[in-house]
């Protein structure tokens, strides 16, 4: 089974709360869930919808056809009615000339009990359509509200909604799997996963300027700062945010900042300082389509080449592109260890699709996660001998924080500098420092860089390459494609810079074609692959309308653009 519930209305109608309640309840009930948001850049009005897809097999992407539409206004009907399946349902507060419509009298009932809890009527109605035990929803309401009266009102309205559906209108599906599902799972979105990874890694300072779609990370860390001893500060601008994070990192704590493309653009001078000053820093760049202000609430993957080239001149940096809510946690945790080990900036290149989508995933395993700070051993440094940028074999200098070493000071500098951090324009020193800094990347490539994940036969005819969050929809699309074209492989880049090339090289000698699938206009991964390997990508399936790929859409485009016209 594979059902799609869409909640649609305008901003300010409580869609987010309804989505959080119903999504979590379906997760608790035992379904696999993939939910995502489609919203406009406005606080009230406009047209927003949340789609909650649920079923008996793991889900990675949104689906376009709708089984249950909850329409909170007329516009929602106009926009989505045609996507509701023949035997689907439309829950609406009013009458409509269509068999699929069910009037649940939400406003009228809510007026009598508590108008603010109106959406609970819809939740109750959905629940009855699915023939699920109401206790799950009741419990969640109890967890959500502290006020007993509010809980009571919501419980009542849930029941009203539940009873508004007559017994013949159940959606018929196989319920047997619900009992057997492994409950060692969590339900989380991409921004929360990044924030959780940072908290687990011991981030102690996070500063940011609010910018969609990265704000969720700021919210998450702010809400948990007390428990984790984190200083979370809303900076005056993105320049302040990253420079604060640099100061915190210099002083010795793990520090992070986050933004989306436009804000990240403002940060890049300071990103260069992290590079030349060798100050560990984690930056979450949650992409949205641009340039400039672009499509603020939409998704895209068009900042790849910008991110790897951000800031002037050249310096080592690492860019990680998490693929889903599970990967985002581990990559975020790992980013801090990499930043500390190599003393450089690490960018987590996420996007709105990943940031705002929630999914059920295996609970994060903490046993193998180890925080590695990489400070110099205090006992081994004699008075007045410490040199922040000391030349070493592997290019990694001894890092201390101010006050760590008795009678030693720590000097960091944004200029080119000598081993002490003192400004220099000496030719030999400049060259040695450049080489020293880039040696760190050789070590990263040898010791820590991860090759892309590969799914498919050993010798595929055709190979699809992708990166970051496009992986989810593609994994699903691959199943559809494989049914018709068996011999195809999928290569998913998660470490994206420096680009890992071994796996790709070993697969590239194929009979058929290499196809890159990306959410940008020019095929940035394809360009990067050619730049780093000379391997030419034969086809590009690109999307830049700001909306995520759906699996069926991907499969259709693959057949139409690659197979039928190839």
């Amino acid at each position: 089974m594979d059902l799609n519930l869409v909640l649609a209305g305008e901003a300010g109608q409580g869609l987010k709360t309804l989505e959080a309640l119903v999504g979590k309840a379906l997760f608790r009930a035992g379904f696999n869930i993939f939910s995502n948001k489609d919203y406009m850049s406005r606080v009230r009005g406009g047209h927003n919808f949340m789609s909650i897809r649920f079923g008996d097999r793991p889900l990675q992407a949104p689906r376009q056809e709708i089984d249950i539409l909850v329409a909170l206004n007329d516009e929602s009907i106009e926009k989505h009615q045609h996507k509701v399946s023949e035997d689907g349902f439309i829950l609406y507060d009013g009458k409509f000339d269509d068999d699929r419509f069910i009037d649940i009298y939400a406003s009228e009932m809510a007026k009598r009990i508590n108008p603010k809890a109106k959406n609970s009527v819809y939740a109750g109605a959905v629940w009855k359509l699915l023939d699920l035990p109401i206790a799950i929803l009741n419990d969640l309401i109890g967890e959500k509200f502290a006020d007993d009266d509010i809980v009571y009102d919501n419980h009542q309205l849930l029941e009203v909604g539940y009873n508004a559906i007559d017994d013949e209108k159940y959606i018929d599906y196989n319920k047997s799997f619900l009992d057997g599902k492994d409950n060692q799972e969590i339900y989380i979105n991409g921004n929360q996963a990044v924030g959780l990874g940072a908290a687990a890694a011991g981030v102690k300072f996070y500063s940011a300027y609010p910018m969609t779609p990265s704000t969720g990370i700021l919210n998450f860390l702010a809400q948990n700062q007390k428990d984790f001893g984190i200083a979370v500060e809303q900076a005056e601008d993105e320049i302040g945010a990253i420079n604060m994070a640099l100061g915190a990192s210099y002083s010795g704590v793990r520090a992070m900042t986050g933004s989306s493309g436009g804000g990240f653009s403002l940060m890049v001078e300071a990103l260069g300082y992290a590079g030349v000053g060798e100050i560990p820093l984690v930056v979450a760049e949650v992409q949205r389509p641009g340039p400039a202000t672009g499509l603020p609430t939409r998704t895209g993957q068009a900042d790849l080449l910008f991110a790897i080239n951000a800031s002037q001149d050249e310096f080592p940096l690492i860019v990680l592109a998490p693929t889903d809510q599970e990967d985002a946690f581990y990559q975020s945790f790992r980013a801090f260890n990499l930043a500390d080990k190599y003393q450089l900036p690490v960018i987590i290149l996420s996007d709105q699709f990943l940031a705002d989508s929630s999914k059920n995933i295996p609970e994060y395993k903490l046993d193998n996660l180890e925080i590695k700070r990489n400070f110099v051993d205090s006992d081994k440094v004699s008075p007045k001998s410490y040199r922040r940028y000391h030349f070493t074999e592997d290019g990694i200098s001894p890092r201390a924080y101010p006050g760590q070493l008795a009678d030693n000071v720590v000097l960091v500098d944004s200029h080119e500098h000598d081993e002490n951090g003192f400004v220099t324009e000496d030719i030999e020193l400049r060259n040695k420092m450049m080489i020293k800094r880039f040696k760190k990347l050789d070590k990263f490539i040898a010791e820590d860089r991860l090759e892309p994940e590969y799914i498919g036969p050993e010798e595929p005819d055709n190979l699809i390459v992708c990166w970051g969050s496009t992986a989810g929809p593609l994994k699903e699309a691959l199943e559809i494609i494989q049914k018709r074209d068996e011999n195809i492989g999928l290569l998913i880049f998660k470490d994206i810079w420096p680009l890992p090339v071994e796996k790709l090289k070993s697969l590239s000698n194929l009979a058929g074609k290499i196809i890159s699938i990306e959410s940008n206009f020019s095929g940035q991964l394809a360009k990067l692959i050619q730049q780093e390997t000379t391997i030419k990508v034969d086809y590009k399936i690109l999307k830049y309308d700001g909306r995520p790929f759906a699996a069926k859409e991907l499969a259709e485009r693959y057949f139409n653009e690659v197979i039928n016209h190839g």
Partner: protein
Amino acid sequence: MAKTDIYEADRDTTWCPGCGNFPLRKALAEALAGLELKPENAAVITGIGQAAKLPHYFRTNGYNGLHGRALPPAVAAKLSNPELTVIAATGDGDGYGEGGNHLIHTIRRNPDIAHFVHNNQIYGLTKGQASPTTYPGIETEVQPEGVTSEPFNPISFAVGMGASFIARSFVGDRDHLVKMMQAAIRHKGYALLDILQPCVSFNKVNTYQWYSERVYQLEDDYDNTDINAAFKKSREWGDKIPIGIIYQQKKPVFRESFPHLSDSIDVDGPDKAKVKNLIDNFS
């Protein structure tokens, strides 16, 4: 008095002979020695410019960052490591020009840092363009017809913002400068110290002599807790320029709004049990 040579960086400077940064540096060494602050317990955090080179020529922990960006890292360093004495040192261009937005918000936050502005009313490093404090009418290569914008008045601005410590001093009066630096460092909160410091190469108007003829120490009966008096004093500029603590008040310090932070630097990660609890919220 403690020895000042522990702060000597043992390297040549690129400051011009006669630069006001030299007496300023000497005063800083005396100020820290008087406060018995060891080099490893203080950090001088700067942006870019001649003033911002201070961490290279002075032996404490140092952070020579980006132009205009001294205050954000200084705020964060103090927040992360409360045991560190944090001094942000900027020029007038760095602190009042490129970093103006940070100045506004640093005053609002009131972190426990001292901010020394080496104010020479000109851009020194980039060779003599107008700074935010340059007089109208002064001609430069970039402003050949003379500066037309009104000068920024840092003291009035800071009083207007309700900064918790606002002082002015002059490198030609070292005892006074040392005293002001120490008062700024001791002050619990953001302490702005605007230091008149001649640029001998590019500012031919505001010279040692020009300042010496005009500066005077605030009268003994001046009440620096009276904000109206401070406003009035802040407007005094021209024939007579007051130096001293122009305004001081007790205000909550930035770090007090983070009571969950530990009293010393926290370089470790959280307990796994704590992380597990947070994860459980998502089950």
